[in-house]
């Protein structure tokens, strides 16, 4: 059990237990925001696991999380727009914490791996994750102002 795996465990416990709690209880808007946070936590955890197990190919899993996770949140934001409009969730705290955790994790992983295309791939995953999280948060707080209403 090396330092990467310990960090991944801490991240999962500290980050994902609140996500499960938030998604199962409370208003719907908070649930979608918690799901958005959960995607980022899982992506970072898998990046750390990939380094901890010394399996570079696991980065592909994190890449798919970073690409599809925000898409999933946008699906909820789009199709539950009516429900979310009444009670938009507070997402700023989540977004700020995701950025504050993603940057050091990605930088540490890049330093551990050394420069090269592998580091570029890690940076790509980090950028996709942060941009996706910010956009998805924005979508939850009124990005879809009106859902399709059939005439």
């Amino acid at each position, binding site marked *: *059990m090396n330092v990467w*795996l310990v960090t*991944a*465990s801490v991240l*999962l*416990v500290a980050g*994902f*237990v609140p*996500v*499960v709690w938030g*998604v*199962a209880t409370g208003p*719907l808007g908070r*649930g*979608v925001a*918690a*799901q958005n946070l*959960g*995607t980022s936590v*899982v992506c970072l*955890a*898998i990046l750390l*696991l990939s380094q901890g*197990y010394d*399996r570079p*190919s*696991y980065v*592909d*899993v994190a890449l*798919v*999380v970073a690409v*599809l*996770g925000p*898409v*999933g949140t946008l*699906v*909820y934001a789009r*199709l*539950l727009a*009516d*429900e979310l409009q009444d009670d938009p969730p507070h997402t700023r705290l989540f977004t700020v914490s995701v950025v504050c955790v993603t940057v050091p994790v990605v930088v540490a992983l890049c330093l551990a791996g050394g420069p090269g295309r592998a580091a570029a791939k890690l940076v790509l995953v980090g950028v996709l994750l942060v941009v996706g999280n910010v956009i998805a948060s924005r979508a939850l707080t009124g990005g879809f102002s009106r859902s399709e*209403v*059939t005439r």
Partner: protein
Amino acid sequence: MTDVLVLISLLLVAGSATAVVAVRDPARQALVLAVLGLTLTVLFTVLQAPDVALSQLAVGSALTPLLILLSVRKVRRPGRCEGGDR
């Protein structure tokens, strides 16, 4: 020591799976199901099965929620003759 990670992910899976069953509203169930999918992805990765993790991720993160929410929308929005526009 790596068993600690297996234990954490198993507990997370158990917790979110229980939540899926306990929640009653279909839209929220889709949400909890997506989170269950995320915990399963972690579990499969920890158990060194990235292929299964990718399958779970591909299906569970965007496709299943989209299918469920579209069905919910169709069921909740009856024809014009019955309930009118929502």
